[in-house]
């Protein structure tokens, strides 16, 4: 995006700082990241992103289309990405469930795209207007087969904007779907949102092949390679299939060797980059004996609780997961060697608690503070759970 393009978009977005909802900030982040294609289907509490994109897209020369369902929405987004556009869809629980097959397709075909899931309380239709963090594992494992993708978890309206830009950058860099896991609370709250200036905006653009068609290898390049994307219309005659395929993209469904090579590369390109994908916020961890590990909206309550406890001279630290997948297990292992216990508050009955326990591998205690029903934790609940964790150790 050049300065002129940026200025035109700034005019569409209005004044900064803005006072907008998290859902709207996701749309702002998308257009600033260069997203020029949005396909979606209305669903509470994600609809405001679609509404924003519907108003913004014509003005920045992009395309908005309302599809017949969420399966079609993610399909259109993948199609648009192969037509050369940065593309996004947004949804919530039921729609996210419907998208899973095609998210796997996007992983298999190495299609950059961004999916915002404004989590609501489930299962099934659940509590449509209430927030939850119940899709953390679905984001990682929702489609069948082995794959890796990237998931980011904002905890504020500002971070919705910032992380959607980041999501597009990572998506283009690694040719993988990136999921932004916000929730009904962050999605609907309004906060001060600073729109980045032109020179603050760091965008990653899609790498396309530079070699002649005959020597282009659309799905290869080494064990953890991210091949350049010869998208449609460039003359590379790329054949894209969800079947197990060779480096040339042609089906090889009976070959154990080709399947292993392909799927290993799809996973390794993310796994080997996992250190560079660590996004965590640490506070008060120096000399901390206990820590609260949280993410998303819950982390704001956790921070409030940690501050309260520190005022009472408790040696308690705070670690927030911003990048959830790939999971920053080394950092959690490091933390477990420092502290005696970790509290994991989350708005589900036990999801991120499990990879934390796996990473910690018994090096320290891990206590869980689940909450469901559509209400976020209160600071008092977290304070009490931390005190119980600290007291429990003494006994």
């Amino acid at each position, binding site marked *: 995006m050049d300065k002129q393009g940026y200025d035109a978009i700034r005019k569409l977005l209005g*004044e900064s*700082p803005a*006072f907008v909802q998290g859902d709207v900030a996701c749309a702002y982040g998308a257009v600033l990241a260069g997203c020029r294609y949005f396909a979606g289907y209305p669903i509470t509490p994600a609809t405001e992103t679609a509404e924003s994109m519907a108003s913004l897209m014509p003005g920045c020369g992009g395309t908005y289309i309302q599809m017949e369902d969420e399966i079609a929405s993610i399909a259109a987004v993948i199609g648009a990405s192969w037509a050369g556009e940065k593309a996004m869809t947004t949804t919530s629980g039921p729609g996210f469930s419907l998208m899973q097959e095609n998210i796997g397709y996007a992983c298999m075909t190495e299609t950059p795209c961004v999916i915002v899931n404004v989590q609501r309380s489930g299962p099934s239709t659940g509590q449509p*207007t209430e927030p939850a963090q119940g899709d953390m594992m679905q984001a990682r494992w929702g489609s069948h087969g082995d794959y890796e993708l990237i998931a980011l978890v904002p905890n504020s309206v500002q971070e919705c904007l910032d992380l959607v830009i980041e999501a597009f950058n990572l998506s283009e860099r690694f040719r993988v779907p990136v999921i932004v896991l916000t929730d009904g*609370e962050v999605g*609907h*709250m*309004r*906060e*001060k949102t600073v729109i980045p200036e032109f020179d603050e905006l760091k965008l990653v653009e899609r790498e396309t092949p530079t070699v002649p068609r005959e020597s282009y290898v659309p799905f290869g390049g080494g064990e953890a390679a991210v091949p350049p994307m010869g998208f449609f219309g460039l003359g590379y005659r790329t054949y894209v299939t969800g079947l197990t395929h060779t480096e040339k993209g042609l089906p090889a469904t009976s070959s154990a060797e080709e399947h292993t090579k392909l799927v290993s590369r799809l996973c390794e390109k993310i796994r080997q980059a996992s250190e560079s994908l660590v996004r965590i916020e640490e506070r008060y961890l120096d000399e901390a004996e206990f820590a609260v590990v949280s993410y998303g*909206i819950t982390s*704001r*309550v956790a*921070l*409030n609780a940690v*501050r309260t406890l520190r005022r009472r001279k408790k040696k308690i630290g705070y670690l927030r997961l911003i990048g959830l997948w790939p999971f920053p297990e080394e950092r959690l292992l490091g933390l477990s060697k420092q502290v005696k216990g970790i509290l994991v508050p989350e708005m589900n009955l036990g999801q991120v608690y499990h990879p934390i326990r796996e990473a910690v591998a018994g090096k320290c205690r891990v206590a869980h503070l689940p909450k469901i029903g559509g209400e*976020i934790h*209160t*600071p008092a609940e977290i304070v009490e759970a931390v005190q119980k964790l600290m007291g429990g150790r003494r006994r």
Partner: protein
Amino acid sequence: MRKEIQLAGFGGQGIVLSGLILGEAAILDGMNAVQTQSYGPESRGGAARSDVIISDAPIDYPKVVSPDILVVLSQPAYDKYRSEVGKKAMLIIDSDLVESDESALCVPFSKLADELGRRIVANVIMLGTLAKVSECVTRDSLERAVLRNIPKGTEELNLKALDAGFRSA
């Protein structure tokens, strides 16, 4: 300094918009603000509530703990929230719509709006009164925030309404 303001009434009274304007005014003052809302599945007529937190520091916990100011624009909202709110909270009610037997700042927002010719600006009058008595936002920022969130052609009416609110405090 953290100030918690709760606005409650019926859907259709501009409760959510009022919270938005108040939060935006705080931003224009250089403060931090979080606005959240809750309402039923009805677009009009159901219970509506909008919470605004204004602080000079970053706001971590985004929910109202104990409101410093409660503005009530309907009897059901009064009956529901009055008992939940601590006695230290400042209470502002629309005296045309709510019967209260205790010390509250009673302003006939609806009647004042009718006098200006449009019932719909009652919430803007309320914002003027709220800003005057609580000093949670400056008048200048509130005017700018109102102007940023109203339909074109209604600027004069809304500024008049805001002024009426300041004068009624």
